């Protein structure tokens, strides 16, 4: 990286000095991208200069790219309770490796984060980690995530939670979801709902369709998500009559009909937002059978799924538990719908649903394996794959990782952007450089990704959070 202006190997958390004279800058807040220069002194952005004319010659978006730091609305950091899978320290390190400078930790820890004390304990662990990555916390909606009564929402709001979520499970009781939306709405905090009808998914293993049928896996119907989204939206519609500040965020949507419901609800003016994960955009259920091609490669000219057996596309062994996730990897058609909804703005943000697991939960039978993909370090690479395939613009991808999620929760950077005079909060990656996803390259304790052994584009070189060094690539 000589000549790039990147700083020499340094200490995590120290103020960063940076002088990038020929880079591709992406600033989604202003909708601007192009050749430019950025200078950071002692952690503060001193100058952002957009280049044109001869000065811009030879600089394109295929090389060094600088964008605002990413914000993940949805990550499982497993602390307290499962240090074999992840800790706040390892999770924040992994986040920084993925280009994230702010991370919302989910509440389904053991015990759950359902009190102000638990929220503050997470903040203490984040401070102790030495990472400058911002830890935001989602508090549980219901006490103990038990689904029976409201958790201490006001107390947790005072402690600074980003949202309320029982993620891992929906708020199954309609009356309770209604209360939560109203109560949290008055606090100015969104309810982050995991839309799933549990009566449709008991024992389910793989998305309903050709792959589940052939492999003999118990089918996970799309209707489990669609009915839950429809219910959540209907309840929201009732709540906003009395509490206009109520806000619902639907996380990890995975089916075309569910996204259509959100599209219509937004047109109607309901205060709803949603996210998709990188794996539901770029992968599909044929990965469970052993295919290892991107979802858009699994579609024919009419947008219908191709048969991976006919294509002889099954490169890996079937039943890899790293492909088991909730919601399940869906059909290539559903993945295309996730991507289309990301492009058209129905989807507000890409969230990773980073779900690290230890061997004890994954090196088991497929039917007994925990759901989840360790994904915070591969999110950028999967989105860049969609960009490289011509399915997504680089600007929109970065927007969905930065200003999109920042509009949904409080506590991130005030305004994600490359802003002079502000502490630098940015990521530098090399579009052209591919990196191998492997046990040695991942900083998460969770190695449960079906991308192990594959290469992704866009190696992160540097992540700066709040002006301080969060991640720096070796070499």
């Amino acid at each position, binding site marked *: 990286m000589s000549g790039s202006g990147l700083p020499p190997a340094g200490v995590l958390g120290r103020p960063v000095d940076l002088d990038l004279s020929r880079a591709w800058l992406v600033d989604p807040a202003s909708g601007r991208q192009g050749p430019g220069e950025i200078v950071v002194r002692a952690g503060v952005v001193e100058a952002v200069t957009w280049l044109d004319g001869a000065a811009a010659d030879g600089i394109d978006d295929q090389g060094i790219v600088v964008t605002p730091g990413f914000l993940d609305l949805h990550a499982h950091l497993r602390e307290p309770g499962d240090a074999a899978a992840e800790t706040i320290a390892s999770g924040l390190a992994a986040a920084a490796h993925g280009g994230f400078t702010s991370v919302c930790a989910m509440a389904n820890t053991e015990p759950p984060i359902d009190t102000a004390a638990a929220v503050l304990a997470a903040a203490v662990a984040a401070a102790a980690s030495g990472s400058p990555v911002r830890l935001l916390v989602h508090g549980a909606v219901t006490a103990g995530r038990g689904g029976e009564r409201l958790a201490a929402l006001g107390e947790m709001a005072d402690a600074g939670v980003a949202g309320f979520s029982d993620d891992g499970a929906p708020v199954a009781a309609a009356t309770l979801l209604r209360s939560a939306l109203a109560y949290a709405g008055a606090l100015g905090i969104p309810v982050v709902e995991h839309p799933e009808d549990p009566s449709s998914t008991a024992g389910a293993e793989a998305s309903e369709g050709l792959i589940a049928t052939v492999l*003999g896996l118990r089918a996970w119907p799309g209707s489990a998500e669609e009915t839950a989204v429809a219910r959540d939206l209907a309840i929201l519609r009732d709540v906003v009559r009395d509490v206009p500040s109520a806000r619902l965020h639907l996380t990890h949507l995975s089916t075309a009909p569910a996204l259509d419901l959100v599209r219509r609800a937004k047109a109607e003016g309901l205060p709803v937002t949603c996210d998709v994960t990188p794996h539901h955009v770029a992968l599909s259920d044929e990965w469970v059978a052993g295919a290892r091609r991107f979802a858009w490669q699994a579609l024919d000219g009419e947008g219908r799924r191709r*048969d991976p*057996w*006919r294509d002889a596309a099954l490169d890996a062994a*079937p*039943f890899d538990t790293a492909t088991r996730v909730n919601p399940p990897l869906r059909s290539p058609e559903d993945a295309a719908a996730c991507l289309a909804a990301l492009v058209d703005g129905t989807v507000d943000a890409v969230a990773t649903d980073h779900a690290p697991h230890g061997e004890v939960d994954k090196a*088991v*039978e497929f039917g007994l394996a925990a759901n989840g993909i360790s994904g915070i370090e591969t999110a950028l690479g999967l989105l860049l794959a969609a960009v490289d395939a011509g399915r997504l613009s680089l600007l929109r991808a970065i927007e969905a990782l930065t200003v999109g999620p920042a509009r949904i929760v409080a506590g991130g950077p005030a305004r994600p952007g490359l802003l002079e005079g502000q502490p630098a909060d940015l990521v530098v990656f090399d579009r052209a450089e591919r990196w191998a996803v492997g046990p040695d390259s991942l900083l998460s304790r969770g190695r449960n990704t079906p991308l192990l052994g594959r290469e992704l584009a866009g190696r992160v070189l540097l992540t700066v959070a709040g002006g301080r060094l969060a991640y720096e690539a070796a070499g």
Partner: protein
Amino acid sequence: MIDTTPVIPSGRDVVRSPMVATAWRHRHLLDTDVLAWPEIALVLSGAARMAEVVTGTRERPGTLRGVGVTTLFYEASTRTRVSFEVAARLLGADVVTVAAAASSVAKGESLLDTIRTLEALGARMLVMRHATSGAPYLVAGHFGGSVLNAGDGRHAHPTQALLDLYTLWRHIGAGDLGPFLAGRKIAILGDVLHSRVARSNLWTLTAAGAEVWVCGPPTLLDGFAAWAAAGVDGGRPFRVTTDIAAAVRDADAVMALRLQRERMTAGLLPSPAEYAARYGLTRERLALAAPGALVLHPGPMNEGLEIAPDVANGPQSVVTEQVANGVAVRMAILELLDAARGRA
């Protein structure tokens, strides 16, 4: 550090046919989906040879002498387990039976712990049955020997499908080592959704050229229409119907599947009586099939439910023959896998 390499006695007087040495590529048999027709034909011809060993007209070959064959069944099964054990013994193997009740699972012993233990105890070929689809694939990734899938969840039961095919071959195709079911219609009746037998048979029967019809109540065919349209292996379509008369009409063989009584409590079917009335293989329905059509069942049968007693035990039934053929087919497969492992 314990040396987990089992000792294989030297001086094994193994004579392997050159055909076996070249055409069979698999160390494990996890499903029939990976078998090309020449490999299926090897099983058929091998089983014909082994059938003579079973009946005592040919000397026991001793090809597995000193080889540790372990049966590990997480689901109760007498017929398949004993069939494998008899097959292994007839080949001279050292057979170990593990009664893997839910106890080891309850004690928190993982499947992979168990496999490592069994390998350290000398298992070179592992015959396993498990209630969850895909479990043998996990094991195959961690076991130094050969894994034989004796049934995994709803997914696959490859030796059953091969013994079914061999049974059909004895009656319909004997002597013809090509895809001998071309132009023949085979009906599979019953609980297709939950059936590993149906799934594995779809691969082998369509590979043999058969026109396959699967039939059952709509709740037990969920998802199969899409597979039928796409075709097995992306190109061998089959038929799906809820009309049992259409499925059986002019069939050359009819295979009834076992119906578990828990399908009623799961809300998939109204009652056993209604099932027997609408989907049972009765003499009247069998009369729609081609004259002399064969009746198969993977067993154990619920007589009076999915199959009428006079059909189950009638002149067209080859159910007991299937059981006998199972030993010969499993002997052939054990020998092929052992030879492939020896070459690896």
